């Protein structure tokens, strides 16, 4: 049974049903909570922390926390906004993001968040970690410089038997995404396209498809990401 639930977001009275996560319940009520690793229709991973909100004074990720009766949720307070900025800035300094030369620029969700937050420069030092580009697959490139380890590819891109094409290898700071070598070899065009689409950044690219959209026509050129997630309604 999905019960009706009442809760507040930044003191505004809201209602939803108990089968929703906070991100979805907020969206129903016209409130945008920034997300990055989350992908509609698959189990949330809670890996990026961009969606961090405060629920009854405690920090929680809004994409993994089910909504419940009586929750008092804070979304757009100064400290939470600063926290989210910091997470995005960390991702920019940890990877090697050369946006001017990136195929995904203008269509990239990480960049779109930075645009939305109007981040002028990250507060952390750039790491310039050594990463590589894997071009061994016949259909796709994998640029590890840009991977944010969001696990979207692992969770979404599966063959017809439900096996993931992508997986993590190694652990801790050495962790990275790799293909299942057998499934990777027989990757269909559709799955390759899908992998490029689900990757929020320019880490998975279909060969020959980069820079398809001219500047000015790309997803986030004129429309901020919150207005794409919640088109009609006004944001708070």
């Amino acid at each position, binding site marked *: 049974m999905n019960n009706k639930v009442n809760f507040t977001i930044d003191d505004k009275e809201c209602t939803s049903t108990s089968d929703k996560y906070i991100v979805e319940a907020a969206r129903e009520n016209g409130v945008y909570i920034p997300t990055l690793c989350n992908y509609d229709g698959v189990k949330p991973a809670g890996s990026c922390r961009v969606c961090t909100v405060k629920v009854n004074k405690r920090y929680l990720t809004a994409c993994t926390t089910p909504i419940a009766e009586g929750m008092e949720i804070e979304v757009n307070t100064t400290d939470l906004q600063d926290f989210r900025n910091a997470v995005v800035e960390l991702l920019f300094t940890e990877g090697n993001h050369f946006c*001017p030369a990136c195929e995904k620029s203008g269509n990239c969700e990480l960049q779109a968040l930075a645009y939305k937050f109007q981040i002028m420069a990250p507060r952390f030092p750039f790491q310039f970690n050594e990463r590589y580009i894997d071009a061994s697959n016949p259909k796709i490139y994998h640029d590890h410089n840009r991977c944010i380890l969001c696990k979207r590819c692992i969770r979404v891109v599966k063959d017809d038997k439900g096996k993931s094409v992508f997986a993590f290898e190694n652990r801790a700071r050495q962790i990275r995404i790799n293909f299942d070598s057998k499934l990777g070899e027989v990757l269909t065009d559709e799955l390759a396209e899908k992998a490029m689409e689900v990757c929020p950044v320019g880490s998975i690219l279909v060969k020959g498809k980069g820079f398809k959209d001219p500047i000015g026509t790309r997803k986030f050129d004129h429309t901020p990401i919150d207005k794409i997630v919640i088109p009609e309604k006004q944001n708070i």
Partner: protein
Amino acid sequence: MSRPIIATTSLAGCFGCHMSFLDIDERILDLIELVEFNKSPIDDIKTFTKDCDIGLIEGGCCNTENIHILKEFRKKCKILISFGECAIMGGLPALRNDISVKECLAEAYLDGISTVNKEEILPNDEELPMILNKVYPCHEVVKMDYHLPGCPPRADLIWDVLHALILGTDVELPYEVVKYD
């Protein structure tokens, strides 16, 4: 009141940011009413002749000369601004940052396909600045007061920010002007 003084320079950049600066089009006529230029490629003044109010830095630091000039700008300018991706994060020159200097020099002067260098000489004249171990964003070398991203930064961004700084007004930047490409 005397007019604010602006200085600009291009370190490890491509002059694209300066071109974008000129893209403010006819507003440049307003600008020269409002400010005076000192050291800058725009008026070709090569050395500082006085202290300045605003310094615009294009490009990051890839060699010792860049560091020297940047430090000089910090001394001479009250407000220092990184304009463009290269000043902010190194930009394309920083693509070499995970490659050793030795490898870079070898590729450029010894092993490159089109290289003819029988004596295997690497540039070593003492007149030449030394290449740094990696390309540094300006704010990792001196304190920078503002950052204007973009490759190049949109002319409207440069104008909006300069205009606000000169007149001492607040500025609300439209979504379209803060871009990284």
